[in-house]
């Protein structure tokens, strides 16, 4: 198992290296484009261009440029945004990370609990009215777009009913966990629920299907012949095996969300997270920031996948040998 973990994380490091090279090449070696002009932004004066050229070593060969870029990113942390007049990129990302992590981790907990509960309930109660009702609820969650649902939630809680039922809802924005855990949770509660609803629906549907399939497996019949209780069969045998594909999907979703896919939720609820940072950078064509966030996103997707693979091996002994 330890060997497996080491191998898996070794592979993850290689993948990250490959991604960094790829991102670098896209930004700096696309034929016919002057990267210095791109980084300096629109209408940059010749002095700024010259500064960019020197700073990124554009007169040097590509491998050296790559190393200089990585040095800016990871060693000296002084990658500068020229569009925003000298703002440092790394601290910007570092400020945004806790916001996104708070949002996604909280939502993930909610959607996993909700999705697993709904999926198990529907799968176990198949053939009764509970199953279609729960699944209808799931479809409802899946079909509401986050930006629309978020706006409606805001409309109701911040405006229409803010003076009565929802007077406890704080204004939009983010309060750091270290500053006030209560306020942190209160500010994030509605974003969490909004983001979780979509995923809970997807996970519930997926788990229901897996569970129904598992309940028809031979090993479940064996478990019944052993004289185990239905509850034990459901949870220890059928659900345990059905969770395996759920976990792998979770890894992908979690990684992507932390990497910036929670953008819509962040923008709607005014959370200064990585998604929102990327969004602003894209609007200004702020290349260093985009590059930083892309690498950051790749890092989380790859990391989440590695963690999930290890978890997967923990859940499914058949994977460990591979």
């Amino acid at each position: 198992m330890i060997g497996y973990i080491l191998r898996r994380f070794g592979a993850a490091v290689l993948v990250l290296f490959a991604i960094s090279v790829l991102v670098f090449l896209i930004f700096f070696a696309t034929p016919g484009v002057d990267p210095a002009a791109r980084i300096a932004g629109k209408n940059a004066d010749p002095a700024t261009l010259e500064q960019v050229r020197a700073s990124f070593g554009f007169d040097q060969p590509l491998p050296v440029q790559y190393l200089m870029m990585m040095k800016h990113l990871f060693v000296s942390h002084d990658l500068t945004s020229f569009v925003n007049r000298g703002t440092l990129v790394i601290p910007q990302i570092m400020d945004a990370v806790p916001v996104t992590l708070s949002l996604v981790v909280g939502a993930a907990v909610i959607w996993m609990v909700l999705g697993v509960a709904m999926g198990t309930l529907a799968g176990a109660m198949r053939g009764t009215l509970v199953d279609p009702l729960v699944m209808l609820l799931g479809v409802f969650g899946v079909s509401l777009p986050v930006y629309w649902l978020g706006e409606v939630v805001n409309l109701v809680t911040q405006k229409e009913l803010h003076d009565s039922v929802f007077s406890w809802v704080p204004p939009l924005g983010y309060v750091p966990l270290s500053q006030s855990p209560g306020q942190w949770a209160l500010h994030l509660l509605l974003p969490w629920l909004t983001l979780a609803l979509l995923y809970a629906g997807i996970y519930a549907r997926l788990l229901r299907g897996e569970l129904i399939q598992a309940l028809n497996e031979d090993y479940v019949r064996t478990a019944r012949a052993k004289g185990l209780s239905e509850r034990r069969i459901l949870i220890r045998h059928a659900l345990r095996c059905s969770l395996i594909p759920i976990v792998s999907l979770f890894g992908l979703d979690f990684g992507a969300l932390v990497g910036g896919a929670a953008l819509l939720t962040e923008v709607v609820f005014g959370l200064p997270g990585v998604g929102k940072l990327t969004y602003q950078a894209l609007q200004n064509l702020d290349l260093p920031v985009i590059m930083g966030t892309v690498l950051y996103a790749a890092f989380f997707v790859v990391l989440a996948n590695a963690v999930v693979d290890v978890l997967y091996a923990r859940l499914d002994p058949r994977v460990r040998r591979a």
Partner: protein
Amino acid sequence: MPDQPILEVDDLRVRFRTGGGHFTAVDGLSFSVRPGEVLGVVGESGSGKSVSMLGVLGLIRTPNAEISGKVVFRGRDLLALKDREMRAVRGREIAMIFQDPMTALTPVYTVGWQIAEQIRAHERISKREARDRAVRLLDEVGIPAPGKRVDSYPHEFSGGMRQRVVIAMALSCNPGLLIADEPTTALDVTTQAQILDLMRRLRTDHGSAIVMITHDMGVVSEIADEVLVMYGGRAVERGARRDVFHAPRHPYTWGLLDSVPRVGGPRVRRLPTIPGTPGASAGGCPFADRCTHRHAACEEVPALTGGSGHLDACWLPEEGRERIRRGDRSGPEASPARQSARAADEER
């Protein structure tokens, strides 16, 4: 009271509601098993042999099934038991082994864990003790290095070894009755022989009665004391192994026995087959549609009758069955199906 049956099934019926009406899978099946006895239940796919045993154990879960009749095990009617009481019987007093050992074990737990789980479902013993017993059981069924293998996962065993694990699990609570549903079908021939050997030995050591469901006459001849031949959800012949193999009475049993290739004697160009496809005929004798001896009486269902423990359900005269059977093999009254098979043979 060694002759008191441990299991007595009386007029067991299993019907399924389907889209187009009812389908009767088991139709008035009766038999009994004495302690320590091996009953071989033989029949083609769809003859109702597995369904009847699943019915005995209360493992038919679909709400569309109707089960009636009486299943008396050690003096209790199993069909009348509550779910909870039935769970205490399953796995402890009656254990079941299924056909495919590759899928019969939960893939994510070690075999030791799964055996211990069954023991702990029925007995109040510590995890440690349950595990020790699992090791002993694995040793007993011939798993090498059981102390180490107890922590292996199912996928780390071969098919034959997995079936041994399944058998060890079935025996973990010393059941009075073991129902084995085609336990050797998914295994290769050498492994089959080993598993049959093992089951024979375990019967002597544990004294469990065994119901062996199979479509393989060879397996029955190896292990069974009594034989029950099923067709279309009904018992068509029942008797001691010697009687059924040496003086089979029902045309279906003849067909089954004739379709087994012989090692000695002249080589036949083509093995005899039973014409038609499995499935009960509508009304009357279930085998009528495929029987070469069909006559007017077959419009009605024959009862399972006979003397000295060898019963059959057929309208043919009691006397001279052997002569009728021989006549069927070479006689001029051979069926059209048989004739066309022969014609096809000659064309080659």
